[in-house]
């Protein structure tokens, strides 16, 4: 048994395919780590935890919630030329119950929002969400439309955003590697979830017309 929470830095998170220095933004993750440190205190990490952490980060099974163009780039990333399986993510699941990470690839409109939430709710914990492309980040080019949800973080908590319209497969990989690092950090702090973005400002129940309490934790409902 060893005690490792004190002095934990971004550089300590090893991703085999990509050295820590090559990530463009390490400060954000370092801030999370500092925040977690303040909240977490000292945590004992054993060899078994390390093994679990290694296994989870390297076999994130995605479900592609592909609605439009970004879905095609996801397909391109998963096929031979780019080869997503280098990072242990080639097992794209068609059922949310078998998936670890949901890649929201494409525009989400009002009609789709409840279904997206339902698929998310069907996933087993621990689960992660990657918002791929401008549409799922903010509505993108369709921001002013009457029917487009302005970012999937209004519906569910998001771990990683990947900008682009559509993002190239390289960008997708970069985002997914960031996610791997977040997963690895998590273990060091006794399973405490790292910060996710969620801003359900205007969720309204259409049956009663009431605003849904944004504090509701859908995960533990």
């Amino acid at each position, binding site marked *: 048994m060893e005690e490792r929470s004190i002095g934990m830095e971004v550089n300590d998170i090893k991703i085999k395919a990509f050295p820590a220095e090559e990530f463009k933004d390490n400060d954000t993750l370092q801030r999370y780590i500092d925040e977690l440190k303040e909240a977490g205190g000292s945590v004992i990490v054993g060899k078994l935890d390390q093994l679990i952490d290694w296994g989870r980060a390297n076999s994130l099974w995605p479900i592609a919630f592909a609605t439009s163009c970004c879905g095609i780039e996801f397909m391109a990333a998963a096929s031979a*030329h780019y080869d997503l399986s280098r990072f242990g993510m080639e097992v794209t699941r068609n059922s949310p119950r078998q998936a670890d990470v949901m890649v929201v690839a494409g525009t989400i409109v009002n009609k789709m929002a409840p279904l997206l939430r339902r698929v998310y709710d069907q996933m087993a914990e621990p689960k992660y969400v990657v918002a791929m492309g401008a549409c799922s980040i903010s509505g993108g080019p369709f921001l002013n439309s009457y*029917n487009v949800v302005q970012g999937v973080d209004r519906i569910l908590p998001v771990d990683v955003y990947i900008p682009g319209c559509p993002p190239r497969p390289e960008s997708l990989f970069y985002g997914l590697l960031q996610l791997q690092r977040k997963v690895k950090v998590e273990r060091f702090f006794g399973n405490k979830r790292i910060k996710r973005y969620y801003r359900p400002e205007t969720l309204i129940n259409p049956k009663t017309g009431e605003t849904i309490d944004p504090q509701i934790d859908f995960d533990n409902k």
Partner: protein
Amino acid sequence: MLEITQIIQQIAPDAQIETKQRLTITVRPDQLHPVIEALYRNETLRFDYLISLTGMDWGDRLGAIYQLSASVDLTQEVIVITSTADRDNPLLYSVTDLYGTAHLNEREIYALFGIRFINNPDMRRFLLNDQWKGFPFRKDYVHDPKLNPETVISSEIIDIAPRIMEKEGGELAEENVAVFGEEDYIVNIGPQHPSTHGVMHFRTSLDGEIVKKIDVHSGYIHRGIEKLCENMTYPQMLHLTDRLDYLSANINRHALCMCIEKGAEIEVPERAQYIRTIMDELQRISSHLLAWATHCNDLGATTAFIYGMREREHILDIFDKTCGGRLIINQNVVGGVMFDIYSDFQKDVKAFIPYMRKKLKEYDDFFSHNAIALGRMVRIGLLSREDAISYGVTGPAGRASGWSCDVRRYKPYALYDQVEFKEIVRTEGDSYARYLNRLDEIEESLHIIEQLIDNIPSGEVCAKVKPIIRIPAGQFFQSVETGKGEFGVFIESSGDKNPYRVKFRSPSLAAVSVIPLISKGAFLSDLIGITGSMDFVIPDIDR
């Protein structure tokens, strides 16, 4: 055309007939059906192909524009316009009995403009939820997030269709009919289902393994692109067309550019025409390759999927080197192309042609004659020529049913009148014919590129265009042949810097509207193969 004018005048003496670029007939709502029926049954030239049906809001009047064409000669076009002043309860007569494609189009117009169609057997809203308040495409619509909020709570699907039928005495009766029988066993396929090629939702009633009826639900990616265009200047609209049918992004954009150029009378330099045509054909190959790959994947051949994507990357690399984009390349602009080709472009394309030919042979060897593949495609999903025309199914799917409908041949644009190519037509009408058509069209595209690649003239790639383009008042239409079929852009301009109304004619909507017909009586497992062979793209349907 003189003869048509006489026929119309007999039926509707007070119809306004104008012969501008195309014959335009404006009729009262009650004369609409007889006029269109006369055109449909006209013996010398039957106008049996409804290219597009466009809902309109002219401020004081709501109406619809019917673009008709003849299936034997696509160069012949007639426009029929009708409108009603009643904004509270606008009613028009349906043409569903004549054209199959009218059904979903009329439902779409009801959802977006609130116009209901008498005698349409199923007048539910298409694209939008039943609970949606207001009609977003009307000019006086103001979006209020309180009325139509975002929510995470699902609404139930009610399978009861309202409709208005005309009784024998001419009375109108409002009815509600059940979409499915009470005993029907209904399975939802989609919207989040990997084999529906996007977010399509088929409510399927089954008898054991046999498909009895399919109810098409769409709109899970309805982004209101046409409405967004109304608040944009013409050059700003360009990037939205790319995101309709993203597999034919460059070709869609070509259509919009040509439509604007037609309206604003801009001459495109010849070098740009060459680049546009070559890029279109490369895009078509990549679209067909993806269609082939996913179709094979639907039939269980995962290796074929990887193969198709592999060859596609070669084309995307060429796009990437030309303009930095892979899937959506933003190359066409009004007046020409944004980027000139790079120095090794010709070399790369010429290296790709023999490579692709070799791979086509390989596809043919390992999948096209495979016993399992044949068993799941031959005589499955039969679409007759009459139905293909009635539902407006164009592209490789329409040509597999024996309908010669290549826009490049009938209404040549860019350089298609200067190159030689075969129009691939098969008469079997099954999934296998559609499958083979795509592979053969790849070969034809390679042939077209071969004729052009060495002769690209030097010169400008873009004409001088003002940043704000104004199109004179009027209606403009331009169609092109995408990988899926005839894609059209309709612009009504009021002379302003923004369009008054934009409508995109979607080939995928036609392809999906015919699915209930051709998969009736098929096995559930074959339904997936049939949808794969029709090759539709959902954002193109929902717009």
